[in-house]
């Protein structure tokens, strides 16, 4: 591995200063993607900036407005937090799904987002839950919807000098439910061949609104707005959920690679969308 310097700033200002310092700087949170990328030469760094000591990136804040998740909070703290688990069970589950136990001791949802892999497990769920990213940079902070954050495989929309501070998820609405479902050939330690994040808001057995997003079937995590729009105002019956699944099948843009043929991935989109919606609906009904 090529030599790089290491810095562990304690404030946002220090961090943005380091990013603006010239040369290639890469942010280190859990390191479970970055260290491998540096080792294999996929990324080169002059300096690695460890952001775990910056308070804003390391906090979990839950209040009536929703959840603010510091970008470097490791997965185990998310599912280890009773309040988060109660308010956002699907988020806790997805944090418990990324990598294995050891990876979850380090990896963060923010890192999952910044790494911008099409297969990232957390992103479709965040999109489905209407999560937003808070980004800080030389010119101040801005907010971006999660579905706009990833722009290409491995590429996010951060401008030079910017960093992801936190992710905020709206407070769960009454009668809502969310679920992420992925398909992997093994039962753990695997990359999604396809994944579906689903969120629904129910009212008297009818879906008031819904959001669906897909993993691993497009160059970026894919927000399938049409599926949610189709479901809005319809009954949550098998036919309608299946219909939403068929829309996911059609709107997915998968490729054939070692993880699965394109046609197979389309099939998974249909099946997983239906199943994820079923689970989200069940959760929504449970909270009614």
């Amino acid at each position: 591995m090529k030599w790089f310097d290491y810095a562990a700033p304690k404030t946002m200002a220090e961090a943005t200063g380091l990013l603006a310092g010239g040369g290639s700087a890469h942010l280190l949170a859990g390191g479970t993607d970055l260290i491998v990328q540096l080792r294999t030469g996929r990324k080169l760094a002059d300096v690695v900036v460890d952001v775990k000591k910056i308070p804003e990136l390391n906090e979990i804040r839950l209040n009536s407005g929703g959840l603010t998740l510091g970008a470097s909070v490791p997965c185990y703290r998310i599912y280890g937090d009773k309040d988060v688990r109660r308010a956002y069970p699907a988020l806790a589950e997805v944090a418990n799904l990324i990598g294995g136990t050891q990876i979850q001791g380090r990896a963060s949802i923010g890192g999952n987002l910044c790494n911008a892999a099409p297969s990232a497990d957390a992103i479709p769920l965040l999109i489905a839950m209407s999560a937003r990213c808070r980004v800080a940079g030389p010119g101040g902070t801005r907010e971006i919807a999660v579905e706009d954050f990833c722009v290409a495989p491995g590429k996010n929309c951060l401008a030079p000098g910017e960093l992801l501070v936190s992710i905020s998820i709206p407070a769960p609405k009454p009668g809502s439910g969310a679920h992420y479902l992925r398909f992997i050939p093994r039962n753990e330690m695997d990359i999604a061949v396809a994944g579906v994040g689903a969120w629904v808001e129910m009212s008297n057995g009818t879906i008031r609104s819904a959001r669906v997003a897909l993993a691993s079937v497009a160059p970026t995590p894919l927000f399938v707005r049409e599926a949610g729009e189709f479901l809005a105002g319809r009954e949550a019956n098998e036919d309608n959920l299946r219909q939403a699944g068929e829309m996911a099948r059609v709107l997915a843009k998968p490729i054939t690679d070692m993880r699965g043929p394109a046609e197979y991935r389309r099939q998974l989109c249909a099946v997983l969308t239906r199943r994820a919606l079923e689970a989200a609906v069940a959760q929504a009904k449970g909270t009614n």
Partner: protein
Amino acid sequence: MSTQYSVIGTRPVRHDGADKVTGRAIYGADFQMAGLLHGVILRSPHAHARILSIDTSKAKAYPGVQAVVTADDFPEAPDKMVDLGEGETPLSHIRGNVLAKGKALYRGHAVAAVAAASLHDAEEAVKLIDVQYEVLPCALTAPDAMKDGAPILHESMRTKELGQKTDRVSNVAEHFRHVLGDIGAGFAEAEAVVEREFNTSTVHQGYIEPHAATALWNNDGRVLVWCSTQGSFVVRDATACVLDIPVSQVKVTPTEIGGGFGGKIPVYLEPVAAILSKQTGRPVKIVMTRRDVFEGTGPTPGCYMKVKIGARKDGTITAAQAYLAFEAGAYPGAMVGPAGMTVFAAYDIPNVTIDGYDVVVNKPSTAAYRAPGAPNAAFATETLIDELAEKLGMDPIDFRLKNAAKEGTRRADGPKFRKIGCVEVLQAMKAHPHYSAPLGGPNRGRGVAIGFWFNVGLQSSCTIAVNTDGHVNLVEGSTDIGGTRTSIAMQAAEVLGIPVEQVQPVVEDTDAVGYTAVTGGSRTTFATGWAAYEAAQDVVRQMKERAAKLWAIEPAAVQAERGVFSSNGHSITFKDLATKLATTGGPVVGRATVNPRGVGGSFAGCIADVEVDPETGKTTVLRFTSVQDAGRAIHPSYVEGQMQGGSVQGIGWALNEEYWMNPQGTMVNSSLLDYRMPTALDLPMIETKIVEVPNPGHPFGVRGVGEANIVPPLAGLANAIYHAIGVRMNRLPMNPPAILQALWDKK
């Protein structure tokens, strides 16, 4: 049996256990030495390319670099045939695989190496070696490599046809044929015939410890090697061959070994570390990365097979035919030989023809992998047997029992079986509660299969020295991959009549112990255990002489039983007698060497329950039982461990493992993330049933149990999947997209 033996059949804690649970055991990469340099190997990015030039000047100039070597740094010794214990191989193939000369034959083929004080510096420097390649078209599967006009890997190789050398230049190294009876007449007699084509993917042994070796070209001219290997003498002999020096100039000290399964028999790193050390005067350690392991070390062959079996309505198999084309990888030796010997070995079939093709392709040179060749072959045979049983309306175990091989059955490749346990294994499967348990749900199915593997003998040496406290030191040369120190020591303890805790087994270097062949071929507990048995007998004989001396009687008048020597009212324990060695003639050291041949192999079977998700094609293994004939289980826990481990490797091979190659011959999934070996969460408990049909060719009746257990699961799962969802899978891996595709094709 437990009444007959006091040590054999018990489950003592292994002697090396404490070191292995506390992190003290030293494995290949753990070896440290003052002044150590780190070596890194440059590997070919192309699957098939002529090496036009190698410019190492920039790498040599990189800060910290001490040496850069290529194949040109090996001595220019003329080619010859060498026997490293597994048959004859041209030296040029062994040497060419260690560092490519002239051509790179697979992606990952070692081309050059760098030594530097820092591993990171060596890694950076190796990227600066400038190799000019002329990229050639590649051949990646046996059928493709056999086509007219296929790219030729070895221009100088001539096809051997039915035992005869020919002038034909092709990628087929050898075509052999085994014939028994009259295949035409056999099929004419058959009332039900099944025939299918099968394909299996390249898979890797998957040991968790990457290859690691340290070499020091010492100032006295000796080459000292510390490495993780299945056979220290093979490393010694191969390293000496490649370096063109006498074997006694090389001393190999085996470290602990983190898994091998056949893949740590070939040498890859040792000769390279040795020449780097020669050039620098310092010890050089080379440790492979996981990607190196996948791209540069022996996987097991992928293959194409076409198999046909016919039977009469009463269930008698009348004929069987197999066409087996196996990928050897870059150099001949595809393990199609053992595939040919085992493909129908479980059955007594009068009319058989087997054609085998050893085909070179642009993939890593294949190495042994647990019963090499047999799982592929049994995948075909046992799937067809299941299909035939269904056609005939017979229970699949009854159908197998009706045709099972027994003592006296002749295999198509010649030998007749001595006492074997095929029938007993099948009976144990039938009687097992698993076989009659309800499946309990839709999309579930149960499959069975059986398989055979040999029990090679080969050379082993052992000495046993008696200490004055009645304990003994047992010196052996078999590297211990799975508890064999203990299974060997138990056999000595049984003979000596002392607790196994009083036997201290130690695996020694090639200077300190007599020649001992590899830990492989299910031979270690069998053959080195036999050597320990004989060495212990030698100790007992000498101890009888000492007792006789004490009592002034003839040695022949002394009896030894369970550690007590007695004669006519005299009696002394082994322990007490051990205190008197100095006064009765000096130390006692027993010794033995063995070289058994042609001994009984092992049969294994499995019962597998699966559930298949018809919407995603994913298979879940619900329950799995492994049955195997151990002859005599020395340490039942470690016998079970072999059965469980082999079963799970078979499950991985069946369901998900494969080298995913792109058309350019690059393995795309060369990581433990994407090469999907089973995790703990993918499996149920693996139930075991040990069958004991003693091997008449071993003093305790031992049959090697390391390998046969991986043979049945491939077909066992294919059959279970068929019974779950009604599709016959004839291609491995049977991964979710493949199963879903098969379901779509059926519609």
